[in-house]
């Protein structure tokens, strides 16, 4: 069994009488792009802050590639983090500050210069490099914060709300950059933008009230091996019978339901892997076409947002157990 890139064991953090993180445990596999999801006040930033060594946990352990990290010890060499609500010095100039942080992270002056220029170019900050931090907009400051995470390239990368405050263009550019980065590094992203996480992440964990609700690979979270919706532009003739007979006609299909207008088909099926899911859906499509339907689109699974809302609702009414990876 391979060592996880990050492992959280039984993390507990209280603020006075408020229990912010309550026995949280999960692990992030090496090479994953991991989404960390939860409503406001769920404990995401607190968890990130404990991982970053900024907050002292009341209990629990943080391990990066099997190495336990103690509170307050520098994380350099293990991970680098974009903290939320942390400002860089107003009077500092962008390039100087990044070089300083690079050197502080263990780079030589020459390396820091090169890496700073690379990070500035990656984030399109060239025109702002000589400006003072105080002269930048919120989004531009966020980009500088992200740039400091690119100075060291082997560490685990944790980003707390990386696209918060960015305009749509800048957010899209950042997502594309994150896609590039995640091909080479393990990345953990905390965000409220579930569509963004759905597009970027291979794995995700959902937390609520400081407890793990669920943690799994993205396809399993979205139930891609269990659910599919087919959008039609022309309905099948005999829709009720078609839906009733489908489970008997195709192995793996458990239930089929048409929308009232007959232009949407919801499928519940059981597939052990992606190939089997593809086989089932191909056979369903063939049957639909043979029955006179015209297909506009096929979507496997449910959106991350739908799953998130479902989990939040169910965990609000029952004690959370959670399934770890």
């Amino acid at each position, binding site marked *: 069994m391979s060592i996880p890139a990050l492992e959280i064991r039984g993390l507990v953090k209280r603020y006075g009488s408020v229990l912010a993180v309550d026995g949280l445990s999960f692990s992030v596999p090496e090479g994953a792009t991991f989404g960390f999801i939860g409503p406001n006040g769920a404990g995401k930033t607190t968890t990130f802050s404990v991982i970053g*060594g*900024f907050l002292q946990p009341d209990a629990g352990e943080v391990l990066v590639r099997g190495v336990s990290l103690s509170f307050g010890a*520098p994380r*350099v*060499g293990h991970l680098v*983090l974009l903290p939320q609500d*942390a400002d*860089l010095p107003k009077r500092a100039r962008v390039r100087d500050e990044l070089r*300083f*942080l690079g050197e502080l992270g263990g780079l030589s002056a020459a390396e820091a210069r090169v890496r700073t220029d690379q990070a500035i170019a990656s984030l399109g900050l060239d025109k702002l490099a000589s400006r003072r931090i105080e002269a930048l907009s919120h989004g531009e400051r966020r980009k500088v914060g992200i740039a400091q995470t690119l100075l060291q390239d082997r560490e685990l990368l944790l980003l707390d709300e990386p696209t918060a405050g960015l305009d749509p263009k800048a957010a899209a550019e950042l997502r594309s950059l994150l896609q590039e980065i995640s091909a080479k590094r393990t990345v953990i992203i905390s965000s409220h933008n579930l569509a963004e996480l759905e597009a970027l992440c291979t794995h995700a964990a959902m937390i609520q009230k400081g407890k793990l609700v669920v943690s799994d690979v993205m396809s399993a979270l979205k139930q891609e091996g269990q659910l599919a919706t087919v959008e039609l532009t022309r309905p099948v003739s005999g829709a009720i019978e078609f839906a009733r007979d489908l489970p008997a006609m195709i192995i793996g299909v458990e239930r089929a339901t048409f929308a009232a207008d007959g232009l949407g088909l919801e499928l519940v099926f059981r597939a052990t892997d992606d190939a089997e899911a593809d086989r089932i859906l191909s056979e369903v499509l063939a049957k639909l076409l043979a029955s006179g339907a015209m297909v506009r689109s096929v979507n496997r699974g449910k959106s991350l947002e739908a799953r998130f809302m479902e989990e939040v609702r169910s965990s609000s009414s029952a004690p959370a157990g959670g399934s770890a990876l």
Partner: protein
Amino acid sequence: MTRTSWLRGAWLVARAELLAMVLGFRVIFLAVLYGGTMAATFALVLSIFRAAKEQITKELGATSGLMDPKTLLDAFIQSDKFQTWIDTEVMTMARAAGGEAETLVLAMRAGDLPWPAALGLLVTATTLPPLLLLISYDRISTDLGTGYVRYLFQRVHRSAYLAGKLAGQWLIAVLVMLLASFVLLAIGFGVNELDVAALLPHLPAVWLGMSLVLLAYLSFFTIFATAFTRPFVVLLVAGFAHFLVGTFGLFSRFGEVWMGRFDVRISLLQGSAVLLVFAHVLVFTGISFYILRSRDV
């Protein structure tokens, strides 16, 4: 995997602190206020000396014929009348003022401490610590309050950060003290008011002693800078603590211990006093580090 050694981390933080203070207005503020106070005090004392000299020359001149004013003044200082006045009246006043003043007069009387060095030392000891508080009170608390330390503490140990900040501020203090001293020496030499050649050999010990005391004061203020994240609160509480401790020291034996006793500045680096100042630095820095390492940021 890259790591930063503790020493390199502290050095990088110190360098950044030094640069931020030099490139900002703080050094100028410190140099102008400290240098200005020093220059004004010297000008005042010199004018008093000049007036006294003129009076003495006038009074002695009637009976001494062709003697020049300097010789007349030296003769007066060596006279039994003046020495008796020092040993009785001045010493009585010094004893009444406290042990530090007595030590100061004795040091001057013995020739260990020329008056310009003693005056510079007094001005430095009284004005520089509060001025240092004014220029440094927000340097750590702002980093804590804005969350900037979250960028730093990922990369450098908290103790290295603290040492770097302290070292940067201390170097600024020492540099300003030396700069002001050299400027005043040059002016004194230029206007032919100071015997710079006689004064110079006494100054390194004074500078060294004062440097230690300034480090102790900075480490004292750092306790408050690490405890509070609002700069204004740091200024208020540290300023009040400085005033309170100073006032308390004036009326109690505590004043003979606080900041290594006055001896360290006037007895030219007396061993026990130096150790006592180092103990202050260690204790204050230890408290600051304890606060910083235990706090959530």
